[in-house]
């Protein structure tokens, strides 16, 4: 089948590893991202700033899901419950975190809808919970009381969306702590290479893998479960993997960057073949109008650790194109997180000598490589750091 984006390969800045090379690296336990001090500086630094930003995103998503639940006009949803004049002024003055990016990720997860969380949202148990919540809510809210009989699926869909919002908030809570721990570990000397960094992330993911994902709301003084403990939803399989699928891999075509011509088959009619996620994104068009990652880059720019900020100032246009450089580093970091997730979910240990287990591992690696081989793997090589700007 023809590539979905024929012009995209021309925007790559460094050699692209072949699928066989990538598979070999995964099976040999090597990192996808090349070892280099610059890469370590970039990935640790950008993940530290990402950790700070995710902390704010997580707090806000949890706040929205719990305190703005079924609010038909959530105009203060980004204020985290502090509608003071000073906070509103800072918000209007754009001296704030761009929570819109968090919502974009939530919408991507909700729309692509993969994994255990999405499956639970279609169960009878969930519908019964929703019915109880809506009964209680509509008794006290005349607007919703009017809306619900007219559009009986509307409030259920809003609750589904709120459930995804809360789950993403919980996921990012773990990831934020993990990334900030990573920065501390690097400063303490416990992480000194890309391989150690990937292992650190893998250990963190594995440690949190079985963490339960639950979500309850309070309506009129009554407590209701939306995602009850009985649903047995867990961090890794039910939220982390769907998040990676929706945000890292599939994503959504960004309006304003490229004309996606659906009639010319430039957009796959099969949603599962979408490849507009973070691992496929062109780092250059950041800061164009209406492009969500640019909001994240702006947020990370406000929390850059000094060593990385200093390094960015030495490259290319210095502060002038700093968001593009953050985006390039961020993409490398996301490959490291993906790398850690793959390493942590191999069906069998890579050291296994059992042929069947080796074959299963190979099949697992091949499935991943099949998707990663046409991602922006040009950022993985050692040359990519120079290409991002230092030769300007």
């Amino acid at each position, binding site marked *: 089948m023809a590539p979905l984006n024929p*012009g995209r390969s*021309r*925007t*790559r*800045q*460094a050699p692209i590893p072949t699928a066989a090379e990538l598979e070999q690296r995964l099976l040999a336990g090597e990192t996808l991202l090349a070892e280099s001090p610059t890469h370590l500086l970039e990935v640790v630094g950008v993940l530290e700033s990402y950790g700070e930003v995710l902390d704010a995103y997580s707090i806000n998503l949890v706040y929205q899901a719990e305190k703005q639940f079924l609010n038909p006009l959530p105009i203060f949803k980004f204020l985290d419950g502090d509608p003071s004049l000073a906070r509103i002024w800072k918000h209007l003055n754009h001296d704030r975190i761009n929570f819109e990016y968090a919502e974009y990720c939530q919408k991507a997860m909700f729309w692509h809808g993969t994994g255990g969380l999405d499956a639970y949202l279609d169960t009878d148990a969930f519908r019964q919970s929703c019915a109880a919540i809506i009964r209680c809510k509509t008794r006290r809210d005349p607007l919703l009381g009017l809306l619900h009989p007219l559009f009986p699926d509307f409030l259920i869909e809003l609750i589904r969306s709120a459930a995804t919002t809360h789950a993403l908030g919980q996921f990012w809570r773990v990831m934020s702590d993990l990334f900030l721990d990573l920065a501390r570990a690097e400063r303490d000397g416990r992480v000194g290479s890309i391989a150690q960094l990937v292992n650190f992330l893998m250990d963190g993911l594995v440690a949190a893998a079985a963490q339960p994902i639950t979500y309850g709301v309070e309506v009129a003084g009554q407590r209701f479960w939306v995602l009850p403990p009985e649903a047995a939803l867990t961090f890794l399989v039910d939220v982390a993997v769907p998040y990676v699928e929706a945000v890292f891999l599939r994503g959504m075509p960004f309006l304003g*960057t*490229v004309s996606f011509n659906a009639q010319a088959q430039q957009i796959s009619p099969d949603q599962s073949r979408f490849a507009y996620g973070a691992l496929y994104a*062109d780092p*250059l*068009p*950041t*800061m*164009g109008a209406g492009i969500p990652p640019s909001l994240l880059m702006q947020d990370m720019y406000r929390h850059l650790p000094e060593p990385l900020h200093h390094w960015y100032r030495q490259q*290319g*246009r210095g502060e*002038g*194109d*700093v*968001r*593009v450089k953050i985006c390039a580093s961020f993409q490398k970091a996301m490959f490291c997180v993906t790398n850690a997730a793959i390493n942590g979910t191999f069906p069998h240990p890579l050291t296994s000598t059992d042929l069947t287990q080796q074959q299963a591992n190979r099949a697992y690696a091949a499935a991943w490589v099949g998707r990663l081989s046409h991602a922006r793997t040009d950022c993985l090589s050692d040359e990519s750091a120079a*290409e991002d*700007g230092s*030769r*300007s």
Partner: protein
Amino acid sequence: MLSALLAIPFLGALGLMLWPGELSLEKVRRAALALLLLQLAWSLRLLLLFDPSCGGMQLQESIPWIESLGLEYRLGVDGLSLPLVLVNAGLTLVSAYASTTVTQRPRLYFALLLVISGAVNGAFLSLNLLLFFLFYELELIPLWLLISVWGGARRAYAATKFLIFTAVSGGLILAAFLGLALVTGEADFSLTPVLSGQLGMGTQLVLLGALLVGFGIKIPLVPFHTWLPDAHTEASTPVSVLLAGVLLKLGTYGLLRFCLGLFPEAWAVAAPWLAIWAAVSVLYGSLAAIAQRDMKRMVAYSSVGHMGYVLLAAAAATPVSLLGAEFQMVSHGLISALLFLLVGEVYATTGTRDLDVLRGLLNPERGLPLTGSLMIVGVMASAGLPGMAGFISEFLVFRGSLAAFPVATLASMVGSGLTAVYFLLLVNRVFFGRLAVTPPEPGGPLDIRLPAVPLVRHLPAMVLTLLVVAIGLAPSGLGYLSEQATTAMSQFPALLAAISGKPA
């Protein structure tokens, strides 16, 4: 008063050349900028002294020179020439400001810029035909040197072509002036209109034809335009600014001052054909611009098209159309200078002007966002969007010419529409989309490592943009300045008809 506008650049150029000791590029440039600032200040003083309510020549200066030849040093200014003198002062300053990379012979370079500016002032202010011719020819050699010494790879070809065309232009103009003196027997070479009582219509038409071809080469009008795209392509950015912004105006000025001014009756006879010629020039220039792949050639062909409006307006010779011609000369001077500056910036940063190579330069982080934004304003102004100088001039030209030559005017309006077509093609290809400069080897990665352009380099372009918008929003100042002169010119055919007792 007016002589100072010749003395400042000429003596300045002489001073730069004769200054003892070594002078670095920056020192020479600063000295030239100081002289040109003084010239601009003096031109603005002229503006204050000028009385717009008077339609005739003002602030006249006259010194007998070689009386036996009819050569008299006689200067004067009216509403037709004053705006052009101001444009000359402003754009030469812009040109010198933009000349930051002249590593070879900077003294000669800036001296030549000053000589051109002085010669252009002289041509606009001359009230004697021979004196005009002297200044008209005087700017030729410095410009030829500027292209042939500081030009691009094919500069020798372009400079020689320019020299041959413009020399022929000068020859025809001189022949017409001498012919006029010969057949009328009046060798004072003054700007007095010729009456049919003095000269038969056939002779008038022949002399007018020689002048038309002479100035048609300079403007340039189709089919005498082929030197211009080559000259622009090979000239450096500051020289292109001067060439498009100021030197082409010598041709259109000559058209109004000498063709219409000296032969108003013959002009009225030839006018329908001139309107057709104008429409052909507009359409040809616009269609040729659409076909271009080099940004500079596209802007150069747009000049060919836009200068056709001046011929159309002059052919109609109504008060409104002649005012439109004046507006068009000023607005085209500013807009084309702006566009050439910006194209030069793109070339200096990316190393190419090829529309098939450049993409997405509006990228805010790694592209040229300010250059792109100013370019969009510039092309909008050139396409005649309301609120900018181009709209006022085109509206006046079309409004003033429509009744006289409806078909030619409508054809020219189509040309105006085509301006939007080729400039939107340019903006769409070069500035929109994903930032990319195609590498020399096909299939290689796209180059996105462009250096940033410092704000200070954009200063002239920003000033020109402001002027273009200012004239578009408040055109009455320029209109007040020129209205009396252009209205007086439009009366020539009727007045002469009344004098000679024939209908116009």
